[in-house]
């Protein structure tokens, strides 16, 4: 029995829709494959394949003028290598900036599409339906906020501007008033006041709002901000999907929106704060001096690399607690060398990774993976915390607030309630620190004056290198 497929009845737009369906499935698979580091890379290729299918299909859409494809092709041919080069050249420590930049670029593209389509769809003001105009306003508004906010986040992370919260009187009120004005103008467009300039004003205002909204947020809170901007860009892409009536944009955008939202909530939870508190709290303005730490009771006990080396070499279990200070000092490779040296002696070495170690979700894992630390040694907080009780030495390198026991015990501490690594449960604690300055959040840490803690002062990289050679000669 032969079945002849009625292919002739499948129209061109059906084929294009099918191609978009392939893209959607690929994106979902790409995310699905990320559940396991062993398959994740394959998933990314599947995602890239889906994107290629979607892009090729787009050139066959009806109602487009083929002559314009020349320009589109030229622009793509020029910008693709730039994107690839940036992605190849970026240092892993600069990954948060890179992600912020891509968030911004995607958001910016969504806003520009809204602007261009508004012009096309509304030659006569007042003729645009509620659905299209609402999508255009949302896409323009959210895309612009995402673009401008991401650029500020980029500048902060790249240290083009200060990472400290930038505050001035009336800031919250001013931002709120601006947002209200933007929403008002948006509603005016929905109501039929569809002059070109109104949307341009909305976009310009949204750009300003994006800048003003990220300025007061401190550098240590960037993981939350980047995740949130990621969600914004996703939602802006989904809104663009409504503008153009393309399901592929709606689904893909919303997948990203969901991902960004989930990460935002996770990051805020890892800081023990609400998202609203992170965004509007202007954390990190508090400063505590070394004298105040000393006055808090007890004294710190400085030590030498040789003493620490003996302690480590004769330990059974060591947990390394890396913080962003380790990455700043570029000590990742030295730390891996130290771990290898200890493992040669039969010491069990693990890494305890706090969710907000680094400047974006999961950042520390990438930095250590780059230094060839096998990922099965990288343990997340909930998994490793019970193990500190049976640990001989906890080696804290460039981490501070995430090890602060005050978060558990002191209701007056600004980080009270933040989940922390239970470093103080280990038998011995060694803290590698540049000096007695408080951490990023500027909060004093009772761990440093704990009787079982010793402090090894100095640059993280040179301290770890000294430890490596000292362990070798034990």
């Amino acid at each position: 029995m032969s079945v002849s497929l009625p292919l002739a009845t499948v129209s061109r737009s059906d084929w294009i829709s099918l191609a978009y369906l392939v893209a959607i499935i690929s994106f979902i698979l790409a995310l699905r494959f990320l559940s396991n580091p062993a398959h994740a890379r394959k998933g990314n290729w599947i995602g890239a394949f889906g994107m290629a299918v979607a892009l090729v299909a787009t050139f066959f859409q009806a109602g487009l003028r083929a002559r314009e494809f020349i320009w589109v092709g030229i622009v793509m041919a020029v910008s693709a290598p730039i994107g690839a080069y940036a992605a190849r050249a970026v240092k892993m420590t600069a990954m948060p900036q890179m992600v912020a930049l891509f968030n911004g670029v995607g958001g910016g593209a969504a806003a520009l599409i809204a602007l261009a389509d508004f012009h096309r769809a509304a030659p006569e003001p007042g003729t645009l339906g509620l659905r299209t105009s609402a999508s255009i306003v949302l896409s323009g508004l959210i895309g612009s906020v995402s673009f401008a906010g991401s650029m500020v986040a980029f500048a902060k992370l790249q240290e083009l501007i200060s990472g400290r919260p930038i505050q001035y009187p009336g800031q919250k009120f001013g931002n709120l008033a601006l947002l209200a004005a933007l929403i008002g103008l948006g509603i005016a467009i929905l109501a039929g006041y569809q002059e070109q300039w109104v949307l341009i004003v909305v976009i310009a205002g949204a750009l300003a709002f994006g800048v003003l909204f990220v300025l007061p947020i401190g550098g240590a809170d960037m993981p939350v901000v980047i995740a949130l901007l990621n969600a914004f860009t996703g939602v802006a892409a989904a809104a663009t999907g409504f503008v153009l009536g393309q399901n592929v944009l709606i689904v893909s955008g919303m997948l990203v929106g969901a991902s960004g939202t989930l990460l935002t909530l996770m990051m805020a939870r890892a800081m023990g704060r609400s998202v609203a508190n992170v965004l509007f709290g202007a954390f990190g303005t508090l400063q505590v001096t070394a004298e105040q730490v000393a006055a808090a009771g007890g004294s710190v006990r400085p030590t030498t690399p040789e003493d620490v080396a003996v302690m480590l070499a004769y330990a059974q279990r060591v947990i390394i607690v890396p913080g962003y200070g380790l990455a700043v000092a570029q000590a990742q490779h030295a730390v891996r060398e130290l771990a290898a040296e200890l493992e040669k002696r039969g010491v069990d070495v693990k890494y305890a990774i706090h969710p907000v170690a680094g400047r974006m979700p999961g950042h520390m894992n990438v930095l250590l993976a780059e230094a060839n630390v096998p990922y099965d040694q990288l343990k997340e907080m909930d998994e490793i915390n019970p193990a500190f009780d049976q640990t001989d030495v906890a080696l804290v390198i460039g981490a501070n607030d995430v090890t602060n026991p005050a978060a558990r015990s002191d209701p007056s501490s600004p980080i009270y309630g933040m989940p922390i690594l239970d470093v103080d449960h280990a038998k011995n604690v060694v803290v590698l620190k540049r000096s007695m300055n408080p951490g990023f959040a500027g909060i004093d840490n009772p761990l440093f004056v704990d009787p079982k803690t010793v402090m090894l002062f100095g640059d993280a990289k040179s301290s770890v290198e000294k430890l490596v050679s000292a362990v070798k000669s034990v």
Partner: protein
Amino acid sequence: MTASFLVQLTVLVLAAFLGVEVISKVPTLLHTPLMSGTNAIHGIVLVGAIIVAAYPHQATWIHVVALVAVALGTGNVVGGFVVTDRMLEMFKRRKPEPAERQEAEKRE
């Protein structure tokens, strides 16, 4: 029109739930590649940018705006996938060296 809008809205809501479902299974280990990977996926706005850039009969400045969107979208897509690949390549399981393996066997 409204029917198709409701279909789109349905698709949006389902995608949101699916997204939460899939993403919650991604370990914290891979959250940075997750972000750069979703970065690449929202590069799908490039599809929209191409459509808008190739609409016939439009003002030059709109055409330029759309082409800028194409440029941003292209950089987003290509850069996103390349950087994600670069990161995921680095995540390796432990491969014990011969000496270490003997010790590991001894311990077991």
